């Protein structure tokens, strides 16, 4: 007889927090490069949130990692990118890509159309984090 797994209350993804060298510079960059808006900046300038809806994209200063008892690999443009990406969705990927690069993002992979119809490009942000700029997944044609 198979046992069903014990019931676990599902958790909610609340925040994605990226540790960066200069929180304010990064927030400024995300506004210019990706058209996002700041939602909260702590007076210490060591923590800030972007207005990204229910799941918050936030940035924390590197000293906070140490204060929290963590050791981290700092994100730097001159280093290999860490193994994660932020994916931002827009209808007009090519324009968004150009605007990001004009604001100082480094192009990594120019926008191309994937076999499933999605347009996807990659840049690295001012801290060296990978940002995917993509169109919404096309809804399959019911016919």
């Amino acid at each position, binding site marked *: 007889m198979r046992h069903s797994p014990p019931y676990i209350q599902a958790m909610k993804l609340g925040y994605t927090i990226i540790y960066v060298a200069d929180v304010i510079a990064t927030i400024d960059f995300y506004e210019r490069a990706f058209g996002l808006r700041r939602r909260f900046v702590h007076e210490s300038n060591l923590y800030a949130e972007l207005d990204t809806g229910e799941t918050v994209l936030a940035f924390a200063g*590197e000293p906070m990692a140490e*204060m929290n008892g963590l050791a981290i690999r700092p994100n730097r443009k001159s280093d290999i990118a860490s193994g994660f990406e932020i994916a931002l969705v827009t209808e007009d990927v090519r324009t968004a890509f150009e605007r990001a690069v004009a604001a100082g993002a480094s192009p990594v992979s120019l926008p191309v159309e994937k076999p499933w119809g999605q347009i996807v490009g990659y840049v690295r942000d001012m801290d060296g984090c990978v940002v995917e700029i993509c169109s919404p997944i096309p809804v399959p044609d019911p016919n």
Partner: protein
Amino acid sequence: MSGVSDLSLIAILSIVLCLGRGQICVMQHFYQEDHRTSWHPFAIETVWRSYARCDGEHRVLPDGRCDIILRFASDGVKPVGDIALRIAGPSTRFHIVPLTAGTAFIGVRFRPGMASGILGIDPGAILNRVLTDDEALAVHPEFAALCQPADSIDALARRLALFVAERFSASQIDPLTAAMINMLHVTGGRIPIAQLARVHQLSVRTARRRITQATGLGPKQLAAIIRFHRALRLRRAGVGCAHASVEAGYADQAHMTRNFRQMGGISPANMPDLVLAGFDM
């Protein structure tokens, strides 16, 4: 986001003192830090004070920092008698300071890499050394002003902090070197020197020279000290030895144990009560 609101209270990690034999005396020992950034945001990490109400000893752990310390007999409120001066250089191993009841200490701990900007000497020249009165005055005669009589421990702490803030010369601090030292701390001492150099667009040789000049410790020594402190902090937070050794970046638990013995003279499995910087006793 717990912790965001009390940023000003938190010191960048470091552990100064731990009680060894005098453990039964723990509650009789007082240790407190003042992290006000207004003292000097670049030069001063903390102004600390401690007071022994009974005999015991301090186990001073290597922390990659330098301190100026005033030592005096006290009733707990004001200095009684002479004030002795100590300049503690960077160290690579623990040392024991015997204490007698009624001994008080006030210290200014410099931020990592800031010693030459305050003392005006190469910190490598005082590696594993504590300069006592005459030796300290030989570094700079101005230090004599610190030992003048004072009305209270508070006044003495203020005097010491202001003295250090005024002496600090930012011109001796290279921002790129400071960035490298910070990155060593952020990574818990785990970033390889080759990568540290590359990220800052320096050769390994140049990176090593600059870090050694600023701290008096080679980058590997400094990284090992930072790793040791992170492991201490993990153990203190209740993380078991096996997990702590992995998270801190030791090859295995035995490696961590050897390192604890060598740097701290203590066992990770059975740590004495530690006075951790950033946590008052």
